[in-house]
């Protein structure tokens, strides 16, 4: 909701800005983008998202090395708090104070691309695809817009996490966790029977991403319409409906009181969750006694790809330095150093052979890192960036109706596709 209003406000103010309320350079959006070639010097600003204070030393190191490499350049580093980042970026964009280089996930970058506020970095950098993995670059290409609107930075994906204690206690083998959806349902049945319904294996309601994970194309190739009302999708929803009817999922999974499968996993109510490569590390802070009992395994379908990137403002006054800085921060060496601090993965091709990512240190967190890294090769962005909160909400409601058995899966999918197409046109 917040983002919706903020987006609306952005559109409104950019319209207003043309009437002289905004900065003087606001009207120059249509002007040819800043001069790309030139010497790297002067001031350049960099904005990251919630990396302080944990990664302050790392970022300072990267920045001072950049300043050392290009004498005469001065980087101003801003780190924004985690909450409200999308609102902050939109207000910066609307008032002409977007930093030269900004950390934007692909969905946050979309409204700025639409308003022509980001630089097409593929023009500045024709060799982009030699250096960065295709999945990362794809994330910053948008249907209907020519070019690439960000340097891919770090990547992550999801790994399955199992509570080995609960599995052993209730007749399952944590060494052989389910590898397909059908096995998942079968094991959920065993767990439910042995635990008397106290513990669940499945605690996730299906959303658009789950359809994509099962290999169902969500949108047409040109991104003009949604296509997920296929028989395969209906069959998957049917399986969920049967599992729900059998009581294999918590009853409140379809309602808004549902607290999420990670929360249920942390509480020990559910024995399965999915999470990024660094999940066990953060769990060790939340629930130190649970973390050692967690066993990771590979994602059951197409693993999701999560991308962070650095975009360059089109109105930057110092394009050469901004591009050099974005390249520098996303370079293979700097990303590898970052990945040694926390379980994220570099978006550079040169990092693929780094043994650090393919060898576990023997801990379950290390295993998860290796599994996640192997999954990245096949990982895809599951949810298209054009999917808005309103679309997700409608899809969720339709899926809930189908799973509770009120309407057929086919009806639910058809209604969801029709509504999403309608919202897409607006």
């Amino acid at each position: 909701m917040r983002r919706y209003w903020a987006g609306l406000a952005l559109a409104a103010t950019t319209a207003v800005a043309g009437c002289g309320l905004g900065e003087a350079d606001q009207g120059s959006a249509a002007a040819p983008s800043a001069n790309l070639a030139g010497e790297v010097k002067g001031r350049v600003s960099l904005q990251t998202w919630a990396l302080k204070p944990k990664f302050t030393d790392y970022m300072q190191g990267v920045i001072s090395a950049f300043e050392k490499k290009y004498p005469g350049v001065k980087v101003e580093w801003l780190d924004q708090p985690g909450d409200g980042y999308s609102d902050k970026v939109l207000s910066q964009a609307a008032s002409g104070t977007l930093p030269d280089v900004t950390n934007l996930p692909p969905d946050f970058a979309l409204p700025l691309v639409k308003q022509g506020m980001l630089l097409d970095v593929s023009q500045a950098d024709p060799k982009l695809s030699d250096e960065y993995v295709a999945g990362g670059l794809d994330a910053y290409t948008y249907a209907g817009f020519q070019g690439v609107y960000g340097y891919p930075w770090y990547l992550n994906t999801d790994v399955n996490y199992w509570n080995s204690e609960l599995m052993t206690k209730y007749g399952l083998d944590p060494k052989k966790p389910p590898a397909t959806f059908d096995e998942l349902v079968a094991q959920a049945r065993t767990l439910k029977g042995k635990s008397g319904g106290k513990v669940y294996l499945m605690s996730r309601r299906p959303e658009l991403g789950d359809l994509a994970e099962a290999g169902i194309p969500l949108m047409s190739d040109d991104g003009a319409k949604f296509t997920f009302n296929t028989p395969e999708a209906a069959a998957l929803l049917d399986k969920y409906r049967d599992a729900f009817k059998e009581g294999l999922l918590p009853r409140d999974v379809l309602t808004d009181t549902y607290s999420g499968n990670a929360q249920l996993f942390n509480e020990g109510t559910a024995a399965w969750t999915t999470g990024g490569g660094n999940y066990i590390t953060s769990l060790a802070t939340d629930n130190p006694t649970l973390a050692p009992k967690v066993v990771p395994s590979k994602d059951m379908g197409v693993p999701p790809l999560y991308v962070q990137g650095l975009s360059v403002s089109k109105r930057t006054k110092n394009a050469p330095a901004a591009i050099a800085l974005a390249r520098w921060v996303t370079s293979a060496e700097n990303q590898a150093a970052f990945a040694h601090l926390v379980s994220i993965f570099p978006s550079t091709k040169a990092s693929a052979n780094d043994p650090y990512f393919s060898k576990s240190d023997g801990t379950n967190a290390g295993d998860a890192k290796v599994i996640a890294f192997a999954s990245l090769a096949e990982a895809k962005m599951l949810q298209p960036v054009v999917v808005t909160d309103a679309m997700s909400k409608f899809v969720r409601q339709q899926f809930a109706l189908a799973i509770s058995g009120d309407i057929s899966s086919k009806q639910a999918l058809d209604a969801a596709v029709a509504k999403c197409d309608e919202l897409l046109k607006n």
Partner: protein
Amino acid sequence: MAAHAKAGRPSGFNRIGAGEKALRYALLLLVLALTVSPFLWQLSTSLKSLDEDIYSRTPSFLPEHPTLANYAEVARTIPVWSYAVNSLVVAVIVVAGNAVGATVAGYALAKLRFRGAKLLLGLFLATLVLPGEVTIVSQYVTVRGLGLADTLLGVALPGAIGMLNVLLMRTAFQAIPPEMDEAAVIDGATVWQRLLHIGLPNVRGMLSVITIFAFIGAWDDFLWPLIVLTDPANYTLTVGLQYLNGTFIANPRLIAAGTMISFVPIVIVFAALQRFFFRGVEEGAIKG
């Protein structure tokens, strides 16, 4: 004035049986448990040490190894005190602005006759209809235009006179019988004298209500200060505490400790003003 009317008189109306009394207390305790338990959970989380589980099926309120280390860690991670001072500066400007501005404006709308008073009231009401998110960007552009971006004054200014507070004060002033004003006019009192000597003593309760609302609003606001402020040194407490919730690391114990730190001043303000607050809530009848 009101005190001697109530003092020491056994109230025949309020006599209730023991059973009903027990029921009332039981219900009150239930509501108390419902409203207070999230705070207690935060408090107990903030006191838990690193080797204790935070999330469990049955939440445990008593930390096994209570520690104040989380509070120390919060203070070490972020400059809590300077953030708190920033928050306080904003809160003081907002409270002062509302106490003075809303009082004066409310008095004018309630008691003075001037051309366009109705229109003005309508405009005041109209601004209440817009959700804050819609105006936030244009508000930011305005504040930037005034050269107040990244300053605490820029954070405080838009909230310095709340329209709702003006309406509340207007209602409070309207409750004063017009005869009192007329008598004062005959005695030769000016508008300011009437505001100070007749108006204000009768609206003290409502004044404390808007003081508390303004304080809580300014102290708790997150989105607006986040948008206005750029330099981390200027952050208010709510924005600064977000640094505890990093991209990869979010220790719930530290977040809980931070929440407690920001919660304490609100308790203090409320405790100091609650005597007036409850008078303000039940205000309406004027006791001569």
